[in-house]
């Protein structure tokens, strides 16, 4: 009888694209303990997106909690995440 398998993968590779699909940041060896906020910050920096503080992460159409970790949110390696801004227009 074999012992149950335990996950020893502590890192994931992630792809984060702007919502237009024009540019993609490939982040390798991201610790699973990283928060989504940290991942977004790194990707925004890699892509050189202006107004980087406005961007949120969307995975499979669902916005991710920036305080949640990659591990907690079940983000697997090679997942594709979108970077989408939260911003307001208007004449005010």
């Amino acid at each position: 009888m074999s012992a149950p398998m335990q996950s020893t993968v502590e890192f994931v590779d992630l792809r984060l694209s702007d919502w237009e699909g024009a540019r993609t940041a490939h982040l390798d060896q991201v610790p699973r303990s990283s928060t989504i906020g940290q991942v977004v910050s790194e990707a925004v920096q890699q892509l050189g997106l202006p107004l980087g503080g406005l961007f949120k992460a969307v995975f499979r159409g669902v916005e991710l909690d920036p305080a949640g970790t990659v591990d907690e949110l079940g983000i697997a390696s090679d997942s594709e995440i979108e970077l989408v801004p939260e911003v307001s227009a208007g004449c005010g």
Partner: protein
Amino acid sequence: MTEGACTFAIEVRRADGALAGTADASVSMCVEDALFRGVQAGHLANDGQLPALRLTPTWHEAQRPSVAALSLRLEGVPTRHYDREVFAVQARALVQRLLREKKISDGEKVQWQVVAREEDADAARPRARTTRAPFPWEPEALPQVPRGGFEVRFEAGVLRKLHDRVRASGETEGAELLLGRLAHDSARQALELRIVDALPLAAGRGGRSNVHFAFDPGSFVSARRAAEARGDGVRPVGWHHNHNPCAGCRDNPECKVNWVFFSELDLEVHTSAFGSPAMVALVGGKVGHLPAQRPGFRLYGWRDARVVERPFRVEGSGAGVWSARDGAFLDEEDG
């Protein structure tokens, strides 16, 4: 990838020169502009590759490291020059953040500057790389577009649909995702953006009012999915929103107040969500010399890494009498 690499930052300083706050500054709008122009002109292949680049700051006289302008050289492309104003939207965002954090006070006089410093070549680099998609244009002969030009054309029915929506907008702003196709004539180095439809954008968490329209990720993602579901190859190419007239404008046909302009908030939306160089923004509302019941439009888009007003053409029949001079349909009663 980057020779002679510099990092750029924006500094906000008080009237006495004290530093109130700083933030990293992005030069991506300049890089995207140079790449787009280089590919349009045929200096570079449209293969998504970014060649080696070199950024050279021009210093304010005797004020190094304060940047007055910068030059960007992409290998194989003539050098392009950008003035400090390309950073204005990022400087405004920093000022707003400092206000929220109460590091500066409302009404306080502050100044901003861009500073550049050489990157530390020995600094640890994260394990990351960036890829990009080719520009999404289709080859086509464009004899109607001047050589080297980039023109925008609306189908009249799209503008009529937006016109009717703006007229009926009541006391809340509305917004749409513009859909279309980009055509490129490599022999003439010409581009034409054709806008063929507009899909409603849902307001985000911040809601909407008479003076604002908030987008959240769901606003953009759901509209893009609706566009993809059409299956006809059109893509998001920009956005439209309207500015509502005040009550006085509605009641007074003689009112000359103009509500069609590109606000600082609008600039944040375009910079963050529509940053590709071919993306455009249409604003609808009361044009100064026309009554509120006859809304008009102005178009804005990227040029030299800044958002500026740009002309557009309207084609097609059956949608009404379009006046390019007024930017409005002139075929109905004012009332």
